[in-house]
């Protein structure tokens, strides 16, 4: 490897970022990975216990519910925000004053997940706005405590999350739609394509890279969902709405079985890493192409 002045300068430029990422990100990841093989409780000197934490994680029947809930979250909190985000982006193009609607739909994304959780805690309460609206339109028989009963609580929280996450997906799709060449669309229209045929046969295939990016980003975020669940239900009642990230927090910061919590964190990170790999691959490939 040849080092010249330019190369050294380039290394100097990226050094602060590399040092920061190493300190804030890489070092804790390594520490967490090592901790997952110990019985660290934050008080006593940690002992190496091999794969015990991982064995416990896969054998403990209490983890069936968090794993099931995480899968539900990963699927639904990917499908809905991405699909609705696309529909909004596609529809908004044809509206006058589309900027106003873009801002309106994007605003929830600027609210913190914790604040949104508190807000939806009130809305989904037994005497909250959602039940009042249901009663007003004649569906009073559907009234219930949406955050107290399973599985309604998980679906309600996914609904709240969708409200927040749709805006960012809409923006991704707007960028994709604005960059589409006009000719294929016009050719398809001349050939008689319209409505859903136009969307499914022409538009979606053309912006598929954006779908992949939005979906992978949504997968990564929904698989590690924590804040919304913690604020709204704390994973309860009876652990019925717990996700893996809540399990990790609960084991780490309530029971202080830090070794075990680290094992859950490693599992979540590994799955996130797989999604991230495909996400980055698709982003970088797209950049290469452009």
């Amino acid at each position: 490897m040849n080092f010249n002045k330019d190369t050294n300068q380039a290394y100097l430029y990226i050094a602060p970022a590399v040092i920061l990422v190493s300190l804030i990100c890489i070092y804790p990841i390594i520490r967490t990975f090592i901790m997952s093989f110990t019985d660290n409780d934050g008080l006593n000197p940690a002992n190496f216990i091999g794969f015990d934490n991982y064995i416990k994680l896969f054998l403990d029947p209490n983890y069936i519910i968090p794993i099931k809930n995480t899968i539900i979250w990963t699927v639904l909190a990917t499908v809905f925000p991405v699909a609705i985000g696309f529909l909004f982006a596609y529809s908004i193009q044809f509206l006058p004053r589309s900027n106003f609607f873009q801002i309106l739909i994007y605003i929830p994304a600027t609210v913190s997940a914790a604040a949104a959780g508190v807000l939806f805690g009130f809305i989904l309460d037994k005497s909250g706005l959602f039940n009042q609206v249901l009663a007003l339109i004649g569906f009073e028989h559907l009234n219930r405590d949406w955050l107290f009963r399973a599985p309604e609580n998980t679906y309600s929280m996914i609904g709240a999350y969708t409200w927040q996450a749709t805006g960012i997906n809409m923006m991704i799709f707007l960028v994709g739609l604005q960059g589409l060449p006009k000719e294929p669309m016009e050719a398809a229209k001349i050939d008689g394509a319209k409505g859903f045929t136009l969307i499914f046969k022409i538009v979606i295939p053309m912006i598929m890279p954006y779908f992949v990016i939005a979906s992978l980003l949504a997968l990564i975020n929904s698989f590690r969902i924590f804040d919304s669940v913690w604020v709204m239900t704390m994973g309860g009642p009876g652990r019925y709405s717990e996700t893996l990230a809540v399990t990790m927090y609960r084991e780490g910061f309530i029971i202080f079985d830090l070794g075990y919590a680290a094992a859950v964190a490693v599992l979540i990170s590994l799955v996130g890493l797989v999604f991230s790999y495909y996400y980055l691959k698709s982003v970088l490939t797209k950049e290469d192409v452009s």
Partner: protein
Amino acid sequence: MKKLTSIFIGLMFLFSANFSLAGDVQLYHDKAGWQDWWIETFDLDSNNSYEITPFADTSSFQATVRQSLRADPPGLFTWWAGYRMKDMVDAGLVEDLSPIWDKYIAAGQVSPDLAKAFQFDGKTYAVPSLIAFWPMYYNKLVYAELGLNEPKTWEELESNFEKIKASGRTPVGQTIEGRWPAFIWFEEFLIRSDPDFYEDLVEGRAKYTDPQVEEAFLTWKSWMDKGWMDDGSAAFGFTTGDSMNNSFSKGEVVHMLVGTWFASTVTGGGIKEGDEWGYFVLPNKKASLPPSVIFEAGPIMVAKNAKDKDAALDAIDFWMSEAASAKWTELMFFPPHNLNAALPGGEVGELVKEINEGGYRQINRYWEATPTEICEAAVDEISKFVLDPTSYKDVMENLQTLADNYWSNN
């Protein structure tokens, strides 16, 4: 270079001066709402100055304290009693405060019974910041309207519930909001039938599959089946309009079983202490049992590795004094830890008097009395029972599995 060195030394001096000015004794606590009362009470201590740090979030507070205990801990910190403090005691990270207790016990100023909540192997590792009892709050306006009296027997209690239910109200509010309150009625039903069994259960000498536990769940289930208790979905305090506390203040819910620390929240709901709400301790289901009440003690501990340990021990000595106890009681309405300090006024004072004079057996709360690993999982299991009272047999089995897992390794 000389200039840089001078600036560096100047900054170092400034920082060190800042730290020494901040206070001789550090106190970390997670009761942010009490901050002004801590300051006011410790202001009476002429020997020490204090740096009192509140934490708004309990989890971050716990993580900070635990992580700091081996490195640079605060001299004083609040915590939770019983098994919640045991791992710190076992790890040798907190100071034995027995000499200070012995001094005040010998002077007849504190009760040796109070120390039991903080004792391991005969040594006492904390002093109380909070003493609370767990009586039944009841709405006196509803009682007057329906012509009811405070129940002295289990039968009278259930008869009151029947009349309250017939009037269209909910006799008892319960909540499992935030997980932890699930244990409240579990422990209460157990001690009303067999307090010795309860103490055996929390210490691993009895099983969750024993008939006493089944009886507790069945009584609880029957109360829920009869509509005497709500479904547990209401929030605890003021968070929503139909919270347990708000329903209580409106007379829609007529009883709540909560610690005496909840008194100001109840009054804040808009009904007057004494005239409109009051306390009674639940009568025993088994009439031959002596009176008993659940109690809760919140500890202040001294970190062994603290730089300010000596000053912290001096601060603990001050805390146990009549002056500090009287001030704390005046501000917080908690029962005083120093026997020379006056009892708080109002309903709490009356209750404490009744407990002291009536020779009530004081039983440690489940949250502190049983190992944390069991308790934290048990509240979720008990919540499952509240959600589906027919599931009590599965819940009992699951609770016993939790207990077996813990006691087989400890």
